[in-house]
């Protein structure tokens, strides 16, 4: 494995830079995936059947906290990568940990939101609008859940091995993934919640 010291650690080998490029291509596929889900949502958004509409269901409070948590966590994962580039292992781990905890907080609020909706009689089975809402939010939530597990695995590897070309590469790719989830959330926040509340 040839290590090129003129580049950041995560790009330092041929394999590493290929992995990062490959992940960008994969994110292209993820964009197509979420674009399809958004399209489905927009097609079905006014088909409430007997169930509640978005304006009856949504509350701005919890959604704002979710947004705050996710946007801040996108910032802290950036700090983690910054610390990683300076070889500060402790700081990298701390920022990584904060990121994942905020992700967990986001998930907690999202799950309690879902529970509230279901208690109000808004289930996956009620109407096409709710089916598409739950699947769109749920897919994003499943991505955050997977991100939490994935990020935890990377943290363990960082603790064990320290910052080397392999762990740096994984951490950087994880940060791309996490930023992407943030971008998707901004669309959900604007076009699902804010538009739904109007």
């Amino acid at each position: 494995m040839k290590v090129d010291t003129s580049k950041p650690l995560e790009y330092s080998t041929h394999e590493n830079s290929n992995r990062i490029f490959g992940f960008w291509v994969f994110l292209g596929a993820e964009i197509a995936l979420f674009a399809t889900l958004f399209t489905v949502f927009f097609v079905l958004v006014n088909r409430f059947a007997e169930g509640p509409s978005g304006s009856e269901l949504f509350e701005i409070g919890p959604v704002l906290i979710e947004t705050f948590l996710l946007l801040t966590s996108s910032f802290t994962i950036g700090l983690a990568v910054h610390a990683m580039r300076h070889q500060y292992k402790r700081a990298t781990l701390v920022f990584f940990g904060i990121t994942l905890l905020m992700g967990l907080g986001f998930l907690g609020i999202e799950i309690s939101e879902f529970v509230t909706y279901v208690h109000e009689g808004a289930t996956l089975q009620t109407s096409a609008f709710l089916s598409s809402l739950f699947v769109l939010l749920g897919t994003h939530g499943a991505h955050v859940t997977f991100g939490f597990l994935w990020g935890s695995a990377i943290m363990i590897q960082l603790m064990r091995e320290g910052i080397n070309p392999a762990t740096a590469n994984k951490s950087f790719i994880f940060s791309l993934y996490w930023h992407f989830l943030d971008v998707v959330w901004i669309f959900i926040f604007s076009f699902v919640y804010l538009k739904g509340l109007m």
Partner: protein
Amino acid sequence: MNFDLEKFKVHGEPLIYGAMISIALVSIGIVVGLTVFKKWGWLWREWLTTVDHKRIGVMYILAALLMLFRGGIDALMMRLQTAAPEMKFLDAQHYNEVFTTHGLIMILFMAMPFIIGLMNVVVPLQIGARDVAFPRLNAVSFWLFFFGAMLLNISFVVGGSPDAGWSAYFPLASNQFSPTVGNNYYSLALQISGIGTLMTGVNFIVTILKMRAPGMKLMRMPMFTWSVLITNVIIVFAFPVLTVALALMMFDRLFGSQFFTMANGGMDMLWANLFWVWGHPEVYIVILPAFGIYSEIIATFSKKNLYGYTSMVASMLIISLLSFIVWAHHFYTMGQGVMVNGFFSISTMAIAVPTGVKIFNWLFTLRKGRISFTTPMLYSLAFIPIFTIGGVTGVMLAMASADYQYHNTMFLVAHFHYVLIPGAVFAVIAGFHYWFPKVFGFRLNERIGKHAFWWIIISFNVAFFPLFILGLMGMTRRMYTYSAETGFGPLNMISFAGALGLAIGFVILVYNIYWSTRYMPRDENGDPWDARTLEWATHSPIPEYNFAVVPKVKSRDAFWAMKHDKQPLFEEPITKIHMPSNTGKPFVLGVVFFFLGFFLVFSMWIPAIVAGVGVLIVLAAMSFERDHGFYIPADKVIKTEKKLGGGTV
């Protein structure tokens, strides 16, 4: 959990019981055979754990050939059932299942894996690379495809096959109208293998863009590699749509959501749109690589460089863009209004233009060439007129107003077989004959190959041309029987005879593999056809590291330039070569995914959750693994090169 053995049973017919028994016998035979000949270790070390792109390619092609016969038997049963009026061979339900699995298997588990198999074998060699960008991910792709295919294949003996057509239109595919688990299999089997295909797409885009030999600019790439690059870009943008569509189908069928229902706000047309937004580009995913294969073969056997290289690339790019904006031509008659039909009609017809450009480029490549009529070349030459018939009838169907007359008739069935069989099947067979000596070091027998060719070409036309006429006579597709007064009988009988001839052709083709393995001489050098591109610059069979020295490319058709213009390809000395090591984890991942899919099909939630956790555990195990591969020392490379003789050094 209420465990009910009844739902696993398939009732009905002696045919299905016969299939069950033969599956059981073949499985026992394989297990006993492997044990008697002590081949389990060999199978595991050399094949199941391999990350070598050539071996993965061979496994893809083997699986595709098996599926060709599985789908072919479906086809024979269909043609037999309709061969005469009032046939009693299959009942309506069984007929529905047969035409559904025929379509699914032929497109997704035969044509695609065959093409991905050829991609795997050829592309890294054509660009002078040692492997694909992510060898382990490549193994993951294969095993997900393979176990997805297996999941669909067990459906007809465990629980029942999908029966709503390969396009699975709602509400027909909903629980209400399709109460067996068949369409659960559809959504999960396709989902699992689709994830594998998406990973292939990512892998090959990175491979082609980042792993090319020094000097191979984009516009110096062989045409097959170009077609593969464009195909994989389509895969990356089209497959996520299928992922979503199948997930929504699963939610509707397993969890009672309301996406495609007829009540509670659901919209059945949403399925048709999502399916064909993926489904139409899918047609080009199987046809563009075929165009690439023909370009290589026609150039090689005309002893000329490909005519109109730039326009070939440009037309493929235009086709790939257009492929995304024609999907609604699949349902002109479902009430979408004049403007929408007009738009999709025009964009569909526009595809004929770049395709025509390619046809003329092939003809100009042939012009004044020194043509040798080898088996792969015969398939390529037969492709041109047959595919043109398919294309012209396609333009007929593209006219929305005229389509009201013949949509959903046998005319359509004839059209897409006239496009897909020459466009995909002849291409992969041609490619198979063409690259076979590269992989195995000996040619397939030409005489037997030509016998198979004539059987296949003539029978194909006998089988499918009558369907054009039947369609114009008004015979609709997916009709399991008809009365004698319709007058459909004689032409259907001819078509059945053609189908039998096709089956004979394919059996001869496989016999050729057997015969050639036993008797063909092994004295080939690496370049039996006097070909033009880099894959022929290494030995046959190919050493595991592909090229002892990474080639330096200075022009198109670099290998030809080396042979005839004395342009050196290999200038560096031999050094140690880095290789990835084998791993069993992709295989295990495929197995776990298979069980996850199976339990979901039957709504067995607790085992499904266990299997889902299993998937995460295997992924974690892959993440924690630190395997940096190994080096083949330079002296060992030199020894191998000397043993293989000639060629590069």
